[in-house]
């Protein structure tokens, strides 16, 4: 049961003196206004990066994997690092919308739409890497189990790489459905305010004929709740399965049972950091500071310091186990290849430690958590650190294998490998710029839902309720409708 009123002690979720129609007006303003010069510049840069990425991929497809600097020893390099990094980023959206919905966290309403969009775009970027790493990308459909003329020779259902195919594609589909079903009412709002024929037509198609019927809302609520219930284990399963790609192998540094929880915590960590980077810009550029408040930023920073510390404990546990297991290969990987600063990749390990474990600790300070500039800077640092983490896991475990004659001296990416990564940034930001321009970046209907119980200007009304005898209050709440 929902309480009708929120404690006076809680920070308001919506600042300013708002009415329902003011909420609509504020959030839809960027959609209804002409795009700014800044938007055009940003969009142009994003499309340029995307084009460079497309050319890099074109070279890789035409000339083969040799365009990258992978070799027999380091068979996974930047590509899988980037894959895991993007998938990790893609975890915050569903976490915010699903887990926080189940926990009845009202603050998710301000940030869930943009976070879910970010999830979907990040998963799209992630998917590029394993697909193009296949080399003969035109045969990518071989990963699907279907009756074929080769036997039929089926895929290996016992392989973590196939689990990944199912996990990522299910995650993408379910996130997309969750996001779009939430968008329907808001598209209807845009449609009903449309001022040109084209807008009316396109948003009319996008809204699927939504009319706000009470029965439809009832079903919509049920749908959201069940999708949230499904997405919660799903979001945990996805990065668990990604970690199985490593943990089920017998490579020192990968073959550990700590991987699933450690990967999931890392994913939430980097995902929230990316949400911060994007929303701090969005709230400023679109003037949405009343809806994406400092309180939201504060709360997300708390998640960042929590998950960052979990990740830190995981790093230390791994080091401890590297020594405690007394397995010399594990010991070599953890204490020489990684933790020894002057080993070839020691810099990446300590870069990771500095970015992920040490620097987020400043968020124990409330002043720092509520500082927009510090938060923005830290969100970038965290994502650099999380990229390092995946690089450390993949490359430092691979570059010196059991056979010293096949040790790889050093691995550095080619321009096309970097170009591919840069290109996914282009894809991500192209999608995000289009989203910010044509979609409501905040869930309008959900903000209206929390407005009267948590809006700044409505809070004083609760004084009278606070003054009531407790029995009256309980009676009121028990008959909340």
């Amino acid at each position, binding site marked *: 049961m929902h309480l009708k009123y929120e404690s006076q002690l809680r920070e308001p979720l919506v600042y300013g003196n708002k009415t329902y129609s003011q909420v609509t007006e504020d959030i839809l303003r960027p959609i209804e206004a002409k795009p700014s010069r800044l938007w055009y510049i940003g969009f142009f840069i994003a499309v340029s990066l995307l084009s460079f990425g497309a050319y890099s991929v074109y070279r890789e497809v035409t000339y083969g994997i040799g365009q990258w600097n992978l070799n027999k020893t380091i068979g996974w390099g930047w590509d899988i690092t980037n894959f895991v990094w993007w998938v990790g980023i893609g975890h915050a959206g569903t976490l915010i919308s699903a887990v926080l919905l189940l926990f009845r966290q009202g603050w998710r309403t301000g940030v869930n739409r943009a976070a879910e969009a970010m999830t979907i775009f990040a998963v799209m970027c992630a998917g590029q890497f394993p697909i193009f790493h296949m080399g003969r990308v035109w045969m990518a459909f071989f990963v699907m*189990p279907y009756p074929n003329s080769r036997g039929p020779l089926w895929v290996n*259902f016992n392989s973590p790489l196939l*689990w990944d195919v199912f*996990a990522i594609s299910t995650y993408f589909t*379910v996130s997309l459905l969750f996001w779009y079903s939430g968008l329907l009412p808001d598209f209807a709002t845009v449609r009903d305010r449309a001022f040109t024929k084209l807008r009316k*037509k396109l948003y009319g198609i996008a809204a699927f004929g939504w009319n706000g019927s*009470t*029965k439809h809302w009832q079903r919509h609520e049920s749908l959201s709740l069940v999708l949230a219930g499904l997405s919660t284990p799903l979001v945990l399963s996805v990065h668990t399965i990604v970690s199985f790609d490593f943990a089920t192998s017998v490579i020192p540094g990968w073959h550990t049972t700590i991987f699933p929880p450690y990967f999931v915590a890392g994913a939430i960590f980097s995902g929230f950091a990316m949400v911060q980077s994007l929303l701090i810009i969005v709230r400023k550029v679109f003037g949405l500071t009343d809806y994406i408040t400092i309180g939201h930023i504060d709360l997300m920073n708390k998640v960042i310091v929590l998950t960052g510390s979990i990740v830190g404990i995981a790093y230390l546990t791994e080091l401890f186990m590297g020594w405690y297991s007394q397995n010399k290969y594990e010991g070599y990987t953890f204490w020489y290849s990684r933790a020894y600063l002057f080993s070839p990749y020691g810099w990446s390990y300590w870069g990771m430690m500095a970015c992920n474990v040490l620097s987020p600790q400043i968020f124990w300070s409330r002043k720092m958590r509520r500082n927009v500039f510090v938060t923005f800077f830290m969100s970038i640092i965290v994502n650099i650190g999380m990229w390092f983490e995946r690089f450390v896991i993949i490359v430092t475990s691979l570059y010196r294998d059991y056979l010293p004659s096949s040790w790889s001296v050093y691995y550095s990416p080619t321009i096309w490998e970097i170009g591919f990564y840069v290109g996914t940034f282009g894809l991500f930001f192209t999608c995000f710029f289009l989203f910010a321009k044509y979609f409501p970046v905040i869930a309008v209907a959900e903000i209206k839902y929390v407005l009267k119980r948590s809006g700044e200007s409505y809070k004083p009304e609760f004084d009278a309720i606070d003054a009531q005898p407790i029995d009256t209050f309980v009676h009121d709440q028990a008959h909340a*409708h």
Partner: protein
Amino acid sequence: MAQKKFVVGCFDDEKVLFPAVKQVRAAGYKIKDVYTPFPVHGLDHALGMRETSLHTAGFIYGITGTTTAISCISWIFTKDWPLNIGGKPHFALPAWIPIIFELTVLFAAVGMVMTFMWLCQMAPGVKKHHFHKKATDDLFVMVIECTDKTNAEDLTSLLSSKGAVETDIQIAEEGWWFGTYDTENDNLYNNVAH
């Protein structure tokens, strides 16, 4: 489809809406629907709607996914083309749990969304009559279908006395049809009967 006559009352505050819903129902009118810009909790009960069983459908879709995954994989790996993978059993259930889980979630989610769209009659290109444009902005729009016995004027004044900020009598198509929204005029003034 047949055209029907509706009395429409618009409210701008849910605190006014709830007593109005009760009184209109107590007066013997059957409320067709209330169109709201956001989910108003408890309104479905106030209107006497039964709970949705969409989640039950979701459960059925979910177990369909589970059984599909188990039966397909076990048939493939034990009957159709048993592969010897490191001498391990062909029926390797623990190794299939990830895929079984993912397919459960996939079937449940996709099935539920399709069912939701079917029940609410929503699809790209579907058009419906909207009683008030601001039902998706800030108005709660109560719609009562007129029968032979209904005195529309009485009902309109009842709605006004219960706090409706706007009232209206409309003749409209029920249900849905294919069409786009760019062809209609302002539906606030369209189809007004009086």
